[in-house]
């Protein structure tokens, strides 16, 4: 058990505007993206956002079990967000919690607008997200990973989905909230969008925002997503560069 009294005395933002890990207020943590992380999955990705570590796998479009769930005119998207028992300070029971069930739902609803489900009637596309280590913004990192895994699975998409959280800490807005800022901060707003379409696919908030703060937080989130988006595209390009080179050499040869 952490000592509450001790941590409450820690200042989360220093006088020169730095956060506990040295970041500026509008700076995201180092973001590492690996595509094709798993062999068996049709598509997969591994994401590190600071100390938050996520692996996502996609299976499908594939035959659906149980069959009665199948839709005659489109695929169904299923999503499971799950935290490893060792991913948090106090061991988490591996049974799905209320929080995990809600997050599975909002992550699915954040990804679904990006897919052409009508291309694959009677099938399912299954997205499995495992949180290996949680240090804040796990749902955003999960969306980043899942959207890369969907792309890696070769599933046609309208756009990648980028995600980032904006928080309020000691009265100031911060980009990419980490665990300690979420716990002792005043607000947390997870956010996801399809950047090239400029549309919002996930928006949640808990805490306290004035109207003005909400508007600023929203703008900050949009900017953060654009940074994440650039890295997502770069990661895909780098991973598929050898295959592209191969294809073009066949064409030329």
């Amino acid at each position: 058990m952490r000592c509450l009294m001790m941590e409450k005395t820690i200042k989360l933002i220093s006088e020169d505007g730095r956060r506990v890990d040295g970041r500026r207020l509008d700076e995201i943590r180092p973001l590492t993206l690996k595509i094709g992380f798993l062999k068996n999955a049709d598509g997969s990705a591994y994401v590190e956002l600071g100390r938050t570590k996520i692996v996502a796998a996609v299976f499908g479009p594939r035959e659906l079990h149980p069959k009665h769930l199948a839709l005659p005119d489109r695929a169904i998207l299923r999503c499971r967000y799950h935290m490893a028992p060792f991913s948090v300070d106090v061991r988490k029971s591996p049974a799905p919690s209320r929080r995990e069930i809600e997050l599975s739902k909002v992550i699915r609803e954040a990804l679904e607008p990006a897919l052409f489900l009508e291309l694959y009637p009677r099938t399912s596309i299954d997205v499995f997200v495992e949180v290996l280590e949680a240090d804040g913004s796990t749902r955003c990192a999960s969306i980043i990973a899942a959207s890369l895994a969907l792309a890696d699975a070769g599933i046609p998409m309208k756009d990648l989905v980028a995600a980032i959280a904006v928080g309020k800490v000691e009265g100031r807005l911060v980009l990419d909230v980490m665990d300690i800022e979420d716990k002792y901060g005043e607000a947390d707003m997870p956010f996801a969008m399809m950047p090239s379409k400029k549309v919002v696919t996930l928006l949640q908030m808990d805490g306290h925002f004035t109207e003005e703060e909400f508007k600023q937080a929203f703008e900050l989130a949009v900017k953060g997503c654009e940074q994440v988006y650039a890295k997502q595209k770069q990661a895909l390009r780098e991973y598929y560069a050898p295959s592209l080179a191969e294809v073009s050499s066949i064409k030329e040869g």
Partner: protein
Amino acid sequence: MAEKVISTVKRQQIIELAQRGRRLDGRGLEDFRPISIEVGVIDKADGSAIVKMGSTTILTGIKYEIGEPFSDTPNEGVLSVNAEFLPLASPTFEPGPPDENALELARVVDRVIRESGMIDLEKMCLVPGERVWITWVDIYVLDHDGNLMDASALSAVAALLSSTIPNTKVEGREVQVLNTRVKPPITNKPTLVTIAKIDKYLLVDPCLEEESVLDCRLTFGFSQDGSLCAIQKGAPGYFGVDDVHKAFNIAKVKSQELRSKLSSVGL
């Protein structure tokens, strides 16, 4: 397939009406259905309220119970919000443990009550680290005609506002429950307002038919002072950036209307 055809036709009808600023039941785009609030309907509960929004009917019961605090908040009472989608409320609800929709509803209502600081949880502590008041908020969906989110929050808030809690005498680590009752330490009257997006139209208080064809919804939680304390986007669609701000502005105005419904019944 038949359902799908009907919903496509229905969606078109709803959009055509919205172009003229109207809804299926004759409302304007930003109108609530008739709202009624009745409190103290269950004598054995410590607080209760039935809220109707059109045909949507929600009964919330409050129970206060002494128990142990969570280890990470030893000086605070415990708040627990649960929602039951009863099979009698809709042909689509089945008996069994809460599904993802019921869990989402409970968690969003929990969020708006908790984050607005509606209940002063520190005052619900009796013996730090050992004995605290647990507030059980049980939301019973009796009839489902859409917008369960707003109706449930209104019902939960009304039930809490009308509730009473037993007086206690604390001597050392002993807690004695007395026969007299007081108002719980309540400091805020939060509300939830859901805006549905259908095509390019934003609608307040979607009924079930509208919900069955909406693109997505955005629920805002407001504290009494008009500040935001919760947001939840739901359903697999998207909002344009401008839509979010428009929806916020509508919801902010409508939240005051909901709060005035509480005052009109003396809460």
